[in-house]
């Protein structure tokens, strides 16, 4: 095995190994478990930094592990994969710190952190998957690793949510499997190459098959990406603890779905072919419907986490809209939203978790005056919410600017209108929260207040969302610098569009 094969494997193993060890640790060995988690997360970040430098310098990394006869598991780090890997590695570190504090003194922590690590391993596997089969394997692994987290609380409600989750995701998995096998029969090779889709170059006679495969694959990935009407598991999964919600919404699950669709459009079909067959138009319609539906549903919710959940439904489809519009600018917008939405949504969910843990607040209507009690948490929340609306200088503005420019560039004026309406809807469900938090008087005692000494809440709960909020500001404010995610994404898109 060459040196180039090591980094992908290290990235994968840095969460897989700690996860497997943690399963066998006794519940009481808190320190060892925490140390394993943190070391794994830190090590992963370190490897990612090295790989970033390597890829920037033009190196290529790939590894293959024997799997089925004639079909190896291929791990390959291209710039698109690295985008997703960097995002999940960074956020995993933040989330580990948060989850350790959040779950202090709660039962079944070994089980929790074991599956938590598996979940992240599956996610980086999806990111680095070098062909369709590998992608499928890790995608299914993610389904299985996430289920125990969704039902972690063990309540009847949690179990029902878990059942719905499994029903949807396994159904999606079946569609994806069918699509994958079908592609394997048509294509010479299913290795993702940066320059072309694996199905490009097939003759006219395959047109119907190509359309059906696209439907199967988008159906399969669309479940996790929460595309309407396959989104229904996501709001229900809100019964899970806050770190799991953050994982589902920002780091792993919905992102895996969106990333899968990106791979389908860019690497299975290629931009040109999906445009020529009208497949991207269909995807754009689907994304538009999801964006508007999610926003309208979010307006109705009084439960904070539910409101955030429907907001995710809406926002993840920004990514899909971006890649569906036939325009490099829109693609930059969509891909950058993959990163930006992750940063903002994780901040929102962690803040929601803080409100629950510290004040017992779970509903929007209970939040009056919370800004005075928890200024830092609510400041982080506000940054992320304003970013979601798409106000500068926050991350969300950068995505929206590119998406809007792309809509104009591709002549899809309707997409611009949808974006702006959606922004107004975002404002309509986020700004009332901010108004309550900062400008209204506290209406009564907090439902369940706990005091944690020096800070407004536990330090381990406070610093993660503040960190991601700062990142939300930084990636927006300094988007023009060469080290920003935006600059990276510009390069990715230049390759996909062969600019």
């Amino acid at each position: 095995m060459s040196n180039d094969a090591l980094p992908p494997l290290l990235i994968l193993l840095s969460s897989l190994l700690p996860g497997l060890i943690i399963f066998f640790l006794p519940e009481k060995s808190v320190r060892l478990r925490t140390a394993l988690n943190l070391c794994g997360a830190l090590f992963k970040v370190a490897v990612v930094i090295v790989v970033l430098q390597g890829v920037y310098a033009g190196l290529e990394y790939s590894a293959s592990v024997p799997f089925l006869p004639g079909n190896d598991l291929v791990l390959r780090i291209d710039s698109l994969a690295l985008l997703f890997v960097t995002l999940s590695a960074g956020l995993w570190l933040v989330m580990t710190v948060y989850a350790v504090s959040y779950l202090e003194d709660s039962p079944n922590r070994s089980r929790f952190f074991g599956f938590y690590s598996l979940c992240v391993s599956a996610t980086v596997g999806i990111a680095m998957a070098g062909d369709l089969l590998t992608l499928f394997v890790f995608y299914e692994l993610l389904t299985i690793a996430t289920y125990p987290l969704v039902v972690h609380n063990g309540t009847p409600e949690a179990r029902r949510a878990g059942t719905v989750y499994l029903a949807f995701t396994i159904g999606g998995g079946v569609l994806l499997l069918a699509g994958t096998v079908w592609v394997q029969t048509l294509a010479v090779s299913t290795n993702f190459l940066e320059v072309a889709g694996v199905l490009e170059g097939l003759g006219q006679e395959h047109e119907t098959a190509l359309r059906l495969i696209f439907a199967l694959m988008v159906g399969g990935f669309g479940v996790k990406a929460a595309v309407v009407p396959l989104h229904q598991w996501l709001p229900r999964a809100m019964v899970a603890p806050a770190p799991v919600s953050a994982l589902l919404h920002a780091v792993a699950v919905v992102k895996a779905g969106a990333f899968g669709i990106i791979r389908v459009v860019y690497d299975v079909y290629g931009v040109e072919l999906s445009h020529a067959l009208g497949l991207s138009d269909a995807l754009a319609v689907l994304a538009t419907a999801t964006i508007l539906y999610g926003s309208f549903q979010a307006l109705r919710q009084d439960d904070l986490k539910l409101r955030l959940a429907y907001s995710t439904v809406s926002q993840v489809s920004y990514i899909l809209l971006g890649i569906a519009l036939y325009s490099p600018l829109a693609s930059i917008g969509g891909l950058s939203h993959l990163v930006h939405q992750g940063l903002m949504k994780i901040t929102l969910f962690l803040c929601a978790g803080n409100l629950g843990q510290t004040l017992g607040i779970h509903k929007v209507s209970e939040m009056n005056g919370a800004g005075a009690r928890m200024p830092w948490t609510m400041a982080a929340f506000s940054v992320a919410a304003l970013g979601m609306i798409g106000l500068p200088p926050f991350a969300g503005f950068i995505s929206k600017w590119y998406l809007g420019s792309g809509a104009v560039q591709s002549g899809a004026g309707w997409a611009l209108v949808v974006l702006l309406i959606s922004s107004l809807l975002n404002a309509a469900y986020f700004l009332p929260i901010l108004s309550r938090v900062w400008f209204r008087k506290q209406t009564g005692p907090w439902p369940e207040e706990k005091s944690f000494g020096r800070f407004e809440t536990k330090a381990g709960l406070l610093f993660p969302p503040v960190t991601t909020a700062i990142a939300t500001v930084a990636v927006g404010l300094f988007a023009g610098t060469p080290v920003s995610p935006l600059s990276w994404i510009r390069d990715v898109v230049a390759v996909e569009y062969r600019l």
Partner: protein
Amino acid sequence: MTTAAWLLPAVLLPAVLGLGLFWPRLRGGIVRVLPFSSWPLLAAAVLAFGSPPTDLPWLMLGVRVGVDPPALMLIAAGTLIWTVAGLYIVRHFQAPWFLGAALATQAGSLGALVTFDPIGFYFFFSLMTVASYGLVVAGRSRRSHDAGRLYLGLALVGEMLILAGFLIGSTAPEARSLTAALLVAGFGAKLGLPAFHIALPVAYRAAPYVGGALLSSVLVNAAIFGVLRFLPPDGGGPGASGAMALIILGLLMAFGGAMLGIVQRDARALLGYSTASQMGIALSAIGIGAGHAGGIAATAPAVALFAAHHGLVKAALFLGLGALPLRQDWRLGFLLVLSLSLAAAPLTGGALAKLWVESAADHLPAHWAGAVHWLLPLTSTATALLMVRFLGLVMRLPATRMEPGGRVADLLGLGLAAVVLPWAAFTLAGGNQQLTVLTPAHLWLGVWPLLLALLIALPSRLGMKAAAPPPPPASPGLPVAELARRPALGSARRHQWATGVTASADLLSMALLHMIVTEGKMRSFPRFGVLFLGLAAACGAALLL
């Protein structure tokens, strides 16, 4: 660092101070420097004046900052207004959230003036919009929250139109008319464009006096500046259709705003309509510029001077209305001088600004120029009538309603600046040398519109007319908003729906009820209805001929 690059830290200073409020220990110090936090920007702007704009490619998607003559005028006026308002705010308000909102609004309203690119501008402008919500809801009552929602809702609709205009303007520069229409409509949300205008009086009434002072001065000035800076050239030169449409729209706002204002029974609501009316004049002035061969740039300093003057007067009027601890007759005298300046009485700063704007009209096609030379002075008549009504309302206002914390010296300084500063700016900007403002002919040009107003106002006892019917509801939309909110409507589920959709339902219902209420008020002033209809008809006829 180039001189222009100093603008950025100076602009961001108030925002940084706002963030500092999160540390309770720093609050005392921040409160002490708050009123003067705009001064570094003025200094930086004076230093950077004349040097070319600087590009900051690393900031967001690339930002360009610099100072040109219109910006300098508006920054100077803005600094003055923010200083007086700041002195008042630190005496009157302690809550950190209000101080933070004021500081962020300040950073946005002044920062927008130093940007040369859409993205930087949009950043500061939206910061200002969102933060100014805090100024509106400062009362923290149900009424102020309802007003805040209406205000912010319409403002955000405007923001989206601006964003659409910027996106189309930067990606498809050939679609100039569409860009121009979107930008005018978007900025119009702040300027009181028809339909958007309903938010102005409601917000001004709900906000504390200092909030009204700021909303009607620095915020609308940022919007006018946005139009000046980003309106794409019409391309047609003299007589271009876009320019003409803007002139007509502006005059419509000027007369319509005055008409709606006169029937108000609340002085602050009246000032809201007055703002829409004055901004109409500013928009038609921009239209005059757009029809100019030299383009908007040729008249931009005149428009900026007009807006700066209006801002100073409006801020002083609001604070003089509610926070001037003086004897009633002295206070009335103060307000009278300001009103005269607003109505462009000879020798005031207002007259100068208006004459400067009017002088640009000579470059329009002959019949347009003729119409403008008639109608612009008539807007002064309309303003004068509105201000007579305003003074009448102030006379009936009980003096006990005065908010504590105002200081006479600050306000007199602000008022004096409003009347005098335009002369200084005019001289510095090198003005139009042919504009011999002090000749008897020009004096008469300033006098006759006011005499006409006096002729109309005196026999009808406009200012004195007692408000016989009960006062209108606090905000015209409230009853409907109330209904939509009432849980008795149905199950908890439906209640959730109701809270969800009130945002949009409120806007619609408020607009509708607002029209009905205003219509009702009109009926008690039949003579003015007829008069203004006549004016509108004359206006249309003059433009068609």
